[in-house]
């Protein structure tokens, strides 16, 4: 019996018990040979971590399941893949903000830890690019992922406030982002033309 198996068994319990140590404790009740009682608290700490660390382990497992779930989107379009990820949030929408707050709760002396949120957005963007077979290279590889991470984060935050309009918002932001991409590309091309023309003028004056 692996710890990961117990985590998988605990994930369906998140809907009823939240991201709690109790969900982890009750995972053994779903085994093929179920235990008569939930795991004691000492055992939950031994397997998953002390206090809120166990909850963080569960939350991270749930986020990981969400990324795997993205692969079962109806198509490989970006809209469908990211929508699939947003759908994964629906059963636990009420408790998700608190879960993210738990992840961001500092373990050290700083005020808040932004790393878990950034890592979550980056992981979703990376998974989306892998599923849509993104072929960007060089700087556009990073730009693509940063852009998708920002789009998904905005859509997810919108979903917390207004779940019914979250999918339309996602579509709008994706369209807006492609327009921005085109605009940036046009500006870049224009800047290159201007640069070349200045280089030609300077050479013709004999300066270079």
């Amino acid at each position, binding site marked *: *019996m*692996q*710890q*990961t198996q*117990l985590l998988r068994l605990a994930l369906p319990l998140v809907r009823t018990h939240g991201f709690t140590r109790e969900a982890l404790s009750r995972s*053994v009740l779903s*085994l093929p040979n179920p*235990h008569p*009682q*939930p*795991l*004691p*608290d*000492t*055992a939950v*700490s*031994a*397997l*998953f*971590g*002390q206090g809120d*660390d166990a909850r*963080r*382990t569960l939350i991270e497992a749930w986020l990981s399941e969400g990324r795997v779930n993205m692969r079962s989107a109806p198509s490989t379009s970006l809209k469908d893949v990211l929508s699939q990820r947003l759908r994964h949030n629906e059963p636990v929408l009420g408790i998700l903000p608190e879960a993210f707050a738990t992840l961001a709760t500092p373990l050290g002396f700083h005020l808040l830890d932004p790393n878990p949120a950034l890592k979550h957005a980056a992981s979703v963007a990376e998974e989306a690019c892998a599923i849509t077979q993104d072929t960007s290279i060089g700087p556009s590889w990073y730009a693509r992922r940063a852009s998708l991470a920002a789009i998904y984060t905005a859509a997810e935050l919108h979903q917390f406030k207004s779940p019914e309009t979250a999918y339309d918002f996602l579509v709008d932001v994706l369209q807006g982002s492609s327009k921005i991409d085109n605009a940036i590309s046009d500006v870049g091309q224009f800047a290159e033309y201007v640069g070349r023309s200045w280089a030609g003028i300077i050479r013709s004056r004999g300066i270079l």
Partner: protein
Amino acid sequence: MQTVTRNLVRRSCRIARPPQTAGKRFNHTSAKQGRRDAGHTDRTTHFGFQTVPEEQKESLVKGVFNSVASSYDVMNDAMSLGVHRLWKDEYVSSLKPGAKGALRCIDLAGGTGDIALRILDHARENYADRETSVDVVDINAEMLKEGYKRFKQTIYHNTSQVAFIESNAQSLPVEQFPDNTYDLYTIAFGIRNCTSVPDVLKEAYRVLKPGGTFACLEFSKVNNPLFGMLYDQYSFSVIPMLGSILAGDRDSYQYLVESIRKFPTQSEFSQMIQEAGFTTGGLHEGRGGAWTDLWGGIACIHKGVKV
């Protein structure tokens, strides 16, 4: 069982011995000997940096601990500059005994009662729990006597919360230690002295209840090479010298230092725990991991759960 054991202990400071092993306590490999005579080759193990036949290790280790028993705690303080107390405090605190009700605990190689006392104090002081109990088990009667003496100075003496039992961690008698009995199995700085670590783990699995926790505090491998070098220098130069000065026994402390180096790494030991049937955290250190390093890996807490 605890009342009978308490009476045995009270009668004349005698330590409870499982009857069937009383005459065979120093010959625990007699069954193995029989199998060996049937055609198996002699097996060897390490005793510090020496290689010795398996059946000799137990008596050699017994000799070491007979020698160090009376000064064990003083030497621990001297060798670790008192740090071992912090490690043991963290070890017991991480288990939170008594937090969710009384626990039935067994502490192996717990002769001097260090861990048992911490468990009972933690349960009492933090959770007003006076029902948690600890069976202190050690193969060495001298170490158990030291523990018994320590407990005579506490409020747990002559209560059902503590019992001292002389037995071998590798083969706990089923009559005295039935299957699925304990909620918590602890062993601190003792497992590396056992001849067969897998046998100890197998017995731990047997006596724990489903959902019970195995927790081991042991010296381990230092991860940082520079720190490791300093630690090696300290271990091999200072500790045997302290043994010679404070306890008049350099060789025993030389063995203690060497035995640390022969113990498996954190990852290897975690895999051994898994092979015994326990479920552990991931094979990494820290949160959600199978072990937690203390002071860069000088000591390490391993945990597993019987699922």
